[in-house]
């Protein structure tokens, strides 16, 4: 990791809320993190934790009834929240790009691959069609698509799932952005194809100094890929820090539980640690700690929202009872009820 004067991305107290008919959904509520140049940051969380909405907020892709209601997203010093839509368009796909979970929705099914790539290049750079074609072919080569000149003439449906995700990555990398937001790009892929995609992305980022935010539910993927991990729960960042700190010395009971619940060589045939219950519905969030109902360390103090405690320059935990004690990881009693019904 290089030392950085000005981080590529600095998100401070980001709050994105959805004003739905059923009520206010605080999908992202006070999230702060920093991405240095060439750094890979993993955002980990379960469904509904707000990790994707965080990514969409950075890209300026939040649609009504949602809105970024507070906070700052500083991209190389410039606040993206305050930016006019027109200026945001100039950045999007150029300096910042996104790789989506489903490559099918990222690519236009009725337009040939070459047209889509050339359009992406020409939208942001004043080059001729032929030059743009050259850049596009170069991009396809970089992500490991065989015979790029020939495949350029194909439509997205003529590619396999893994190849289509490579196309989406080529599209994201083609303008040599400073920052890429990847939203679960390998979740729908097989293990061997996932490894290929991780390999290509990692190589591109290391070679070009591109910063990467990798959003995923899979802690094991970011363990191998990221420099820094942010753990999200119910719209809030509960813990963040360097990879080794988070995985070897987790402080938040949720992070401890997540790590304990992953099957590993040592857990063979034993009971896994299980976090009881399910994540709370975001509509019914109260002011207390959202993890309280499922937490083995919960006490009366947890009725208030826990503040962030700094444990180091880039190490944070949001809990009244931090600690990485092994007590939490003893198996839960058999036959424990699976929480209450979400209404």
């Amino acid at each position, binding site marked *: 990791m290089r030392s950085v004067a000005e981080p590529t991305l600095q998100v401070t107290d980001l709050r994105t809320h959805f004003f739905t008919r059923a009520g206010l959904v605080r999908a992202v509520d006070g999230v702060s993190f920093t991405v240095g140049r060439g750094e890979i940051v993993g955002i980990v969380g*379960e*469904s509904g934790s707000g990790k994707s909405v965080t990514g969409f907020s950075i890209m300026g892709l939040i649609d009504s009834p949602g809105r970024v209601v507070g906070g700052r997203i500083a991209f190389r010093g410039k606040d993206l929240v305050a930016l006019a839509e027109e200026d945001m368009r100039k950045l999007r796909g150029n300096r910042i790009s996104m790789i989506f979970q489903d490559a099918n929705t990222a690519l236009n099914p009725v337009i040939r691959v070459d047209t889509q790539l050339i359009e992406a290049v020409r939208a942001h750079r004043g080059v001729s069609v032929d030059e743009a074609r050259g850049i596009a072919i170069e991009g396809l080569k970089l992500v490991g698509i065989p015979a790029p000149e020939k495949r350029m003439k194909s439509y997205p449906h003529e590619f*396999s799932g*893994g*190849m289509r995700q490579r196309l989406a990555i080529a599209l994201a990398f083609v303008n040599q952005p400073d920052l890429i937001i990847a939203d679960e790009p390998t979740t729908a892929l*097989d*293990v*061997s*194809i*996932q*490894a*290929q995609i*991780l*390999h290509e992305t*990692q190589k591109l980022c290391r070679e070009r100094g591109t910063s990467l935010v990798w959003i995923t*539910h*899979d*802690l*094991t*993927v970011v*363990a*191998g*890929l990221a*420099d820094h991990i942010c753990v999200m729960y119910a719209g809030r960042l509960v813990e963040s820090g360097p*990879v*080794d700190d988070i*995985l070897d010395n987790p402080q938040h009971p949720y992070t401890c*539980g*997540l*790590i*304990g*619940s*992953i*099957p*590993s*060589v040592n*857990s*063979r*045939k034993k*009971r*896994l*640690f*299980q*976090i*009881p219950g*399910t*994540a709370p519905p975001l509509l019914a969030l109260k002011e207390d700690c959202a993890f309280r109902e499922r937490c083995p360390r919960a006490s009366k103090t947890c009725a208030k929202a826990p503040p962030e405690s700094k444990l180091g320059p880039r190490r944070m935990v949001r809990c009244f009872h931090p600690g990485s004690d092994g007590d939490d990881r003893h*198996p*839960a009693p*058999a*036959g*424990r*009820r*699976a929480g209450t*019904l*979400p209404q």
Partner: protein
Amino acid sequence: MSPRGNELVQMKGVSKRFDQKVDPVAWIARTLGSRTGSEFVQAVDDVNLFVREGEVLGLVGESGCGKSTLGRMLAGLIEPTSGEIFFDGRNISDRRNGDSRKLALRMQMIFQDPFASLNPRKRVKDIIGEAPRVHGIVARDQLDSYVEELMSKCGLDPAYRNHLPHQFSGGQRQRIAIARALAVKADFIVCDEIVSALDVSIQAQILNLFMDLKSEHRLTTLFISHDLGVVEHVSDRVAIMYLGRVVELADTEELFGNPLHPYTRGLLDEVPSLDRRGVQFAAIEGEIPSPLDPPSGCQFHPRCPFASDICRKVAPQSIERHPGHFISCHHPPTEQREAN
């Protein structure tokens, strides 16, 4: 190879082929002499497997390798094209056979998607209680208490017995599906990716529940998954499938400690885990070939670093390298070293 006593389920040379329906245009083209290839998918190709009583056999493979088709045949949902399946010593390959219908009750399947596998219009008590009522497993007046007992056993509050599936979360629905499989007192359960649609913390809950029930009911299980970590956690033995064939089969510890097939080795290298930090991801080259047009000989040869001429021509036979460790490869590791 006759059953050696404790094998509950056995497959002998089982294959499944799905033929594409010939549409009129293709039929005319073919009769006029056009050489359009025959369209079929060899989903499962000559598989020999057995599952011992009380054992969990893990079945691992990537999408399209035929692992779900194999599971469906074992659960008796579809018939094999050729080969024989024995359950408790009796042939169940032919579904028209009245005997195999009776046996079907003892084989249950739990599916991947808990949103699609439960009837949305039925209440939980009917989803769980209908089959035991119809088959006379419990008396009508005891049905309610029977269902309640199953629900509590599976970690569901019996107070929710009148709820509909949409009122439950994914993990809870999977609990209902497990209770439904247990309700008919099944001996053999096929679990097809039962945790892959769930969040990590919920996945741990369901895996724990499964392990508890398994030891309590002495369930024999075929556990299908693409997640090697999960399979390693629950299985006694593991079979690795690639494009319709079983390429390696061994005890869990042996397979993960001493993998012999190049595909298995590649897969194990690629599994991300918490202990592998900041790794340089390397990958098996190439893609999974289309099962419509599988490669000749050994199907893994286009992606295999050790492939030679014989691999392109001849499909390798399954050999027992160590007791209980089967592998289908022309160049298993030691031979490779001698050749160099």
